[in-house]
């Protein structure tokens, strides 16, 4: 491991300090081709999926994960839900002067471990250091590349009335775990991020049900926002049943305390899947037979009133779910 104590502006200047950081920290974890190049030429494939995402999270380490793990899971899952098999990642780091090397080491080790678990290689990277106060400790950008098998055609625009909506596990775990870890609300409990790569779970589902219409990971904005996007793209409506929603009690209780709606809280280790009605039971069993999908549920169905998302409540009423304008704020009044 690098023996420098903290990140300095020097580490981003391209000189010896940068080389030290790259060789003694990043290459230690990610490995290196040995030849310093500006780009890596990848062996080709016919259908390449590509995605990119930037990660800023406070705190950078939270129960169930850290920004490094998140930066791999987030991008891997974006590929996975397109039906792609993730292959390569790039990693760009924006580091704030003063960042502890020991912390960076933990984050990068966590990235490496998660990448291995997800079967992806980190093949290109970049590091910049900015002055104290110009960034919040560490920001990571990852770009992911995956190959999509020939016959697969998943699209958020392909859902039809009668289709069934599934979620691969319980809702809201990541968002609540991070918020409670970040703020001084004094709340404690079994609140752990669900952050995990979903490549194997998605393959298990697609093997069992090749006719899956679409999959999406409900990250920012949560399940409600993501389903609204699908409904809009497919020009259909959706109806969810409140009693089918898998929400763990501590998550629901923390939401109740803070006045939040778990349907709008981010997941980082779940996907939504829409499947034709005849495949619904098979899809559910395929998910539940996998350890990452043990909590899978059928949560609703696609219906024929355009672009609306309705929730059938436990009390027997119906209420529309709309896109939130911004982040939910903890409220008391």
């Amino acid at each position, binding site marked *: 491991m690098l023996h420098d104590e903290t990140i300095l502006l020097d580490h981003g200047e391209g000189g010896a300090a940068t080389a030290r950081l790259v060789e003694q920290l990043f290459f230690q974890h990610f490995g290196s081709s040995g030849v310093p190049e500006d780009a890596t030429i990848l062996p080709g494939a016919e259908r390449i999926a590509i995605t990119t995402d930037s990660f800023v999270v406070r705190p950078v380490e939270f129960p169930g994960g850290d920004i490094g793990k998140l930066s791999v899971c987030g991008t891997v899952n974006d590929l996975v839900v397109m039906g792609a098999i993730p292959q390569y990642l790039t990693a760009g780091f924006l580091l704030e002067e003063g960042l502890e090397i020991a912390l960076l080491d933990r984050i990068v080790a966590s990235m490496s471990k998660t990448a291995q678990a997800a079967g992806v290689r980190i093949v290109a990277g970049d590091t910049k250091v900015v002055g104290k106060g110009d960034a919040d400790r560490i920001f990571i950008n990852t770009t992911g590349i995956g190959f999509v098998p020939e016959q697969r055609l998943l699209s958020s625009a392909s859902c039809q009335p009668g289709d069934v909506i599934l979620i691969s596990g319980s809702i809201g775990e990541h968002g609540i775990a991070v918020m409670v870890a970040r703020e001084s*609300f*004094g*709340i*404690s*409990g*079994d*609140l752990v991020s669900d952050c995990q790569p979903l490549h194997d779970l998605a393959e298990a589902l697609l093997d069992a049900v090749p006719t899956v219409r679409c999959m999406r990971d409900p990250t920012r904005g949560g399940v409600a926002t993501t389903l609204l996007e699908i409904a809009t793209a497919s020009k259909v409506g959706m109806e969810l049943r409140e*009693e*089918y929603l*898998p929400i*763990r*009690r*501590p998550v*629901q*209780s*923390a939401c*109740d*305390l803070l*006045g939040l709606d778990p349907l709008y809280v981010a997941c980082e280790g779940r996907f939504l899947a829409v499947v034709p009605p005849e495949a619904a039971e098979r899809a559910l069993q395929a998910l*539940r037979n996998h350890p990452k999908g*043990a*909590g*899978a*549920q059928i949560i609703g169905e696609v219906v024929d009133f355009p672009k609306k998302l309705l929730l059938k409540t*436990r009390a027997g009423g119906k209420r529309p779910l709309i896109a939130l304008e911004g982040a939910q704020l903890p*409220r*008391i*009044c």
Partner: protein
Amino acid sequence: MCLAVPGIIRSITDGLAKVDFGGVEREIALDLLPEAKVGEYILAHAGFALQTLDVEEAEELLALFREIEEAIDAEQRS
């Protein structure tokens, strides 16, 4: 008007109660409810206990929570 949440007092130290709100815990000040005891259900608002809850009725609510949970569990296992 005002969000207030029921919980059960697990312990009390120096007028500060550790309260279990259905699986999450938070410290709640007893300044406004000094006679509250361990094992009692209270209604908390903005970090303070405002009222004790009738146990039988609160139990009924908790039983409802349990019912819902069991239904979810059963469905997940089926």
